[in-house]
């Protein structure tokens, strides 16, 4: 091979290696090593195949380029034994990956016969309802789980099909109205894990993101306890004004607050809203300014969202903000 071609082959080899590297190192997932292992094996196999195809296409096109237009090669095919050989190799690779994937599937998706979920998530256009059947906590969008424990997650949907995907915590699962699906979640260290709805679910699908907060066992217990505490019902005059506005202005037709008479779940549950870090499915941090902008015109902040613009005057926005922000 002339040196120039050698360099070209090296470049190709490096590119293929980079592809393998992409496959194997960039993944977020640390949920289970077996999926990572599959990625690695697949990356190596795919990288090798791709390298061979690129190499031979390129090499033949150089080597067998016609010197003059009328040149005619021998009209002979390669031996068909070669075809057979490739067929056998391809079948072996296939069987290898089939066995590996079935083993991995069974490891990841081993749901018990009568599943008792630790966490139930219901997808809504475009927010997440979270309930913890064991403790009775009901909340929205901000999802807490304890670390070092496999959590059995039940998902379903209140309207259209959504899909739950937090890559670092486990597999993706569709949330289908009328069906219950189950997967395991597992976080090995405390922290915040990002994810997203991955089935197109309408106008604000892009803003239906997930943030799961993995707490230590202790923090999770504290959080659970705080969520179960009754909400405050009295405060500053502005707070009281906000509370009565909340009741008058039909907010309660959609939003529930645990421990009060309002239990609708058409919109996100607002119990202890002030304790949450972010709102609107992880779109904005919970601050007074963001809350005011939202209440002034939700359609400006998140166009197409189900909450209508109530055309509150600035005083009302102020009062409602005071009320909701202090629901801790």
């Amino acid at each position: 091979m002339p040196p120039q071609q050698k360099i070209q082959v090296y470049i190709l080899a490096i590119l293929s290696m980079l592809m393998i590297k992409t496959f194997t190192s960039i993944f977020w997932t640390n949920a289970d090593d077996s999926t990572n292992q599959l990625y690695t094996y697949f990356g190596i196999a795919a990288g090798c195949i791709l390298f061979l195809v690129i190499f031979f296409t390129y090499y033949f096109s150089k080597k067998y380029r016609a010197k003059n237009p009328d040149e005619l090669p021998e009209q002979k095919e390669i031996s068909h034994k070669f075809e057979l050989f490739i067929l056998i190799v391809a079948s072996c690779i296939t069987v290898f990956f089939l066995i590996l994937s079935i083993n991995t599937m069974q490891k990841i998706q081993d749901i018990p016969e009568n599943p008792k979920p630790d966490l139930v998530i219901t997808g809504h256009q475009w927010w997440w309802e979270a309930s913890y059947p064991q403790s009775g906590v009901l909340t929205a969008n901000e999802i807490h789980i304890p670390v070092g424990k496999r959590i059995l997650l039940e998902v379903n949907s209140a309207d259209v099909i959504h899909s739950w995907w937090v890559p670092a915590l486990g597999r993706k699962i569709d949330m289908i109205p009328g069906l219950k699906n189950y997967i395991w979640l597992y976080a090995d260290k405390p922290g915040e894990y990002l994810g997203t709805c991955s089935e197109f679910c309408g106008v604000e699908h892009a803003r239906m993101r997930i943030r799961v907060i993995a707490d230590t066992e202790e923090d999770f217990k504290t959080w659970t306890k705080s969520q179960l505490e009754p909400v405050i019902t009295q405060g500053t005059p502005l707070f009281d004004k906000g509370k009565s506005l909340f009741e008058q202005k039909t907010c309660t037709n959609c939003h529930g607050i645990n421990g009060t008479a309002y239990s609708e779940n058409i919109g996100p549950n607002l119990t202890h809203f002030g304790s949450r870090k972010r709102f609107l499915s992880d779109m904005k941090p919970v601050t007074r300014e963001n809350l005011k902008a939202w209440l002034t015109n939700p359609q400006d902040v998140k166009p197409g969202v189900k909450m209508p613009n109530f055309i509150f005057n600035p005083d009302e926005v102020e009062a409602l903000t005071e009320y909701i922000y202090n629901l801790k």
Partner: protein
Amino acid sequence: MSLFIDIPEDDDQLPAINKDSGRLLWIASVDHKQLGIMYLWLALFFFLIGGIEAMIIRAQLASADNDLISPELYNQIFTMHGTTMIFLALMPALIGLATYLLPLMIGANEMAFPRLNAFSFWMTCMGGFLMYFSFFAGGAPDAGWFNYAPLSENNYSSTAGVDYYLVGLILTGMGSIGAGLNFVTTVLTLRSPQMKLNMLPLFAWMIFINGFLLLAAFPLLNAGLFMMLIDRQFDAHFFIPSTGGSAILWQHFFWAFGHPEVYILALPAFGIISEVIPVFSRKPIFGYKFIAASTVAIALLAFGVWIHHMFAAGMSNTVNGFFAASSMLIGIPTGIKVINWIGTMYKGSIRMTVSMMFAMAFLIDFTIGGLSGASFAIVPIDWQLTDTYYVVAHIHYVFLGGTAFGIFAGIFYWFPKISGRHLSEKLGKWHLWLFVLGFNMTFLLQHVLGIIGMPRRVYTYPADLSYWEILNLVSSLGAIFMFAGIAVFLWNIYVTLKKPRQAEDNPWEAWTLEWATTSPPQLQNFTSLPPVHSRRPLWDLKHPDNPDKKLN
């Protein structure tokens, strides 16, 4: 019993533009060549519209939290982009090439059902324009090209867009069924009497098999579409879970059609590649029998793999495992075809025409698409990567890097036959390099975007996620190169069509029957046919001292 059926020649010739004059003949003509050309123009028209939609999508995604277009409009545009490219650009382009070439390749003067042929074209055409009329009727469809229920039902999609999608696709679907019937019947009944089925040129063989796929797959889609239309117009509940329907049933209907559809779009491209590579390598194809037989295997298996689009829908490990196995199985015959094509180049005398270069770009980029496709058969990988940009990259490597590169190779190869003029090779090389480089720049990176967590069909993304913005920006820049490539292609067509007709009958020294007649062919394709005793009749004619093995 003979399969051959004598079809009596009409005493009255059927209407065609070459015979009489008058503008109405553009509508009335049933000549397969003219209809083929009209299919190709239609495909080009919608390819440009779909391309402009793609440019809007890439412009919107070029930066984080961009508000160039509203989310509502974005959803309409990506829905129409997918639907247009698949049903109104790629399908008509392939059916158009097949309509033009199939009779020529088998030595026939017309399709078996010329009027049905015209009907198919006009159904496709009308279906397409009807779908686009939705932009003026309150909004285009906005539930994605696979239109999942219940998002596509009245409760969640209240404009008439989805209704236009349903009716438009029902019409184009009817057109496709007609085309499939025509292909199968034409091959079975109108072949040159000497041509046995195992002597068909591979393109004709792929179209023949494709005809069966069209006949079996499109009724599934149309059944589903009708059910949803009944849901939306007459308040039925097929796909509405809250009133007793099943949301997932729609997915079964759609993907039971949808996966064969992938092969409906791939097989004709395989056929084009199987014509182009041998001719420009100056050698017979390596493994005709394997390619022909594996195509039948693919066509059958194609109906048993659809669940791999639904691995994340929560079906049991048993079901998923079965479909993982069948999906991996279908990769084998497809993968070995690539070996056959590369093996054809081995020890050939390769002429690097633009057509051949597109075929080689096909080999590499289709392999990438095939490999990323194989990764979806590995269920745990699918559980992570389905519905992300990794899928977007995959589908584009299959449909653009595969099917569209195949179509470009075919257009450059058959343009002299169809129009009597050669497309400029120099402009063609600009087109090729701009398009291929732009294509890989846009879509190779999208694999990475999917892997780091970007879901598909999002109108924007938050700015604080590392690498998302830069990768999306580079991806958008690649789209500009592709757009420039297509501009060069259009310019190439324009300047070529202004030149006088001067192409020889057989400029590439090819071996199949379409090159035995004039360029372009007369209204009656053949007055006499060369003898057909092997798969390469024109080779035998030119090299009587060294003919191929006699097959009849």
